[in-house]
């Protein structure tokens, strides 16, 4: 019984984790500019993330070590620096844009400019990390994050033409504005497949004390959670396609996105949109900061746990303290949060090879996973994701220059 409670919580957690500033921004941009045509990229991103989460969760549950632990142990310090540097840079950008997301939601609600909110938001996040336990961070933000279901309500209320949506779920080639189409595709993938998500997830498996017993829970969590999370992202794309696209509104600023729900649901939609943006971005802020501190601590062998008093893991606590405050700076000096988000998503997409390809080696190592190594399906998926990640690495920068902003 307790286990199924965990499943439910896990599913909820991954919704909270999946729908955050990057997904909301990129899927509404895609909906506004290309209708349903980019929905298939969301499906692709969701499936990929589901596989990666299942694998890193399995890795942690079986080996009792996190993905970051194993990156250092099995590949050595020299190689470890590569994913570490990539994850630090990229997730720092994502972190800054999440803080931007919370700040912009508060700006829309109060009229006080987002740049004033960055530091208070960072301080509140820090206080929660300082005093709270892993359970509070994980489950608290996830339960509150359920408010994101409003996107599904909004999309249904707009009565989309389902056959057209269905066609959008199948891959298609752009008819016009190719560069922008692929640029948004890359952004969506960067928003869906974020390394912090699986680094956090595998550390979370250790924090929650997962063992081989939890492999079923892991599979259901990674599968269902991403199904729901991805579903909600598709809903935000649908809503944007029906509210913004017919009016030829392009999303240049976060402020424009609230219309997507205000239009079908009225004042309630507007308020719930602000709540969703605020809560999911805040939740992601905490998860990213923790993911980065976990990765540092595990890679260097420091004491770490969100359940320990900061005095017992001083380097870990210092890492998250410094990171969350630093990440508030770009927003506090007034960088446009949407620009920040788009750059962060493309950078994320480009960083994927260094965290995806090593996973392939680990997932086939019988010393680590005993008889739970990857089967043909997982290996096939992982090879596909690895190839995709290389394509993203090559395409990301040219597309950013060609069609970004």
């Amino acid at each position, binding site marked *: 019984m307790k286990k199924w409670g965990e499943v439910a919580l896990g599913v909820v957690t991954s919704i909270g984790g999946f729908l955050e500033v990057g997904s909301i921004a990129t899927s509404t941009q895609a909906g506004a500019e290309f209708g349903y045509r980019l929905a298939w990229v969301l499906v692709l991103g969701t499936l990929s993330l589901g596989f990666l989460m299942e694998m890193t969760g399995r890795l942690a549950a079986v080996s009792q070590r996190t993905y970051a632990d194993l990156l250092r*142990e099995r590949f050595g310090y020299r190689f470890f620096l590569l994913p570490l540097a990539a994850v630090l840079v990229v997730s720092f950008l994502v972190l800054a844009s999440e803080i931007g997301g919370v700040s912009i939601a508060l700006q829309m609600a109060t009229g006080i400019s987002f740049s004033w909110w960055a530091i208070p938001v960072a301080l509140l996040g820090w206080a929660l990390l300082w005093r709270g336990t892993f359970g509070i961070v994980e489950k608290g933000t996830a339960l509150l994050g359920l408010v994101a279901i409003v996107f599904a309500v909004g999309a249904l209320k707009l009565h989309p033409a389902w056959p057209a949506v269905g066609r959008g779920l199948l891959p298609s080639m752009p008819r016009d504005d190719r560069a922008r189409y692929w640029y948004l595709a890359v952004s969506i993938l960067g928003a869906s497949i974020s390394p912090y998500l699986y680094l956090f997830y595998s550390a979370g498996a250790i924090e929650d004390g997962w063992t081989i017993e939890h492999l079923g829970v892991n599979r259901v969590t990674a599968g269902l959670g991403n199904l729901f999370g991805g579903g909600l992202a598709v809903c935000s794309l649908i809503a944007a396609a029906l509210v913004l696209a017919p009016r030829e509104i392009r999303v240049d600023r976060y402020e424009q996105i609230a219309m997507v729900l205000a239009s079908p649901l009225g004042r309630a939609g507007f308020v719930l949109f602000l709540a969703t943006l605020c809560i999911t971005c805040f939740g992601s802020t905490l998860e990213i900061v923790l993911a980065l501190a976990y990765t540092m601590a595990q890679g260097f062998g420091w004491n770490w746990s969100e359940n320990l008093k900061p005095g017992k893991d001083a380097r870990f606590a210092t890492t998250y303290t410094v990171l969350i405050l630093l990440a508030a700076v770009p927003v506090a000096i007034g960088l446009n949060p949407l620009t920040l988000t788009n750059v962060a998503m493309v950078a994320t997409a480009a960083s994927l090879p260094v965290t995806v390809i090593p996973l392939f080696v680990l997932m086939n190592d019988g010393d680590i996973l005993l008889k739970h190594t990857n089967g043909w399906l997982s290996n096939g998926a992982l090879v596909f994701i690895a190839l995709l990640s290389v394509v993203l690495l090559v395409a990301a920068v040219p597309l950013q220059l060609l069609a970004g902003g």
Partner: protein
Amino acid sequence: MGGVNLAHDVLDAQLVDHRQEKIGRVDALLLELEDGRPPRVATIVIGGAARARRVGPWFVALRRALRWLFRQRAEHVSRIPFDKVRRIGDSIELDVDERSLESEHLEQWLKERVICRIPGAEGEQK
């Protein structure tokens, strides 16, 4: 006891002290060579200098430049004789105490000078 794979199972492995506190990883492993004798596994090294050397000369130079810039003189490196090893498994347990290790200098410094000056840092349980 069977064989131990030094590169695979020892280098970069998690180290814990006798109270199971995490005290870093095996950043370098020193071997003693003597003619006519098998190489002896002599010392476990923990510390930034040992790690930097593994990356390459450019990294050592970069690190030196940064340390000069921030006026960091003392190297906080721990060298622990291999006979302090109590157990080799998922992690390696050493018969040492975290508080007496030179490589834990930063942890102790941060704890005393920064972290514990902020309310709510100390205590047993969160």
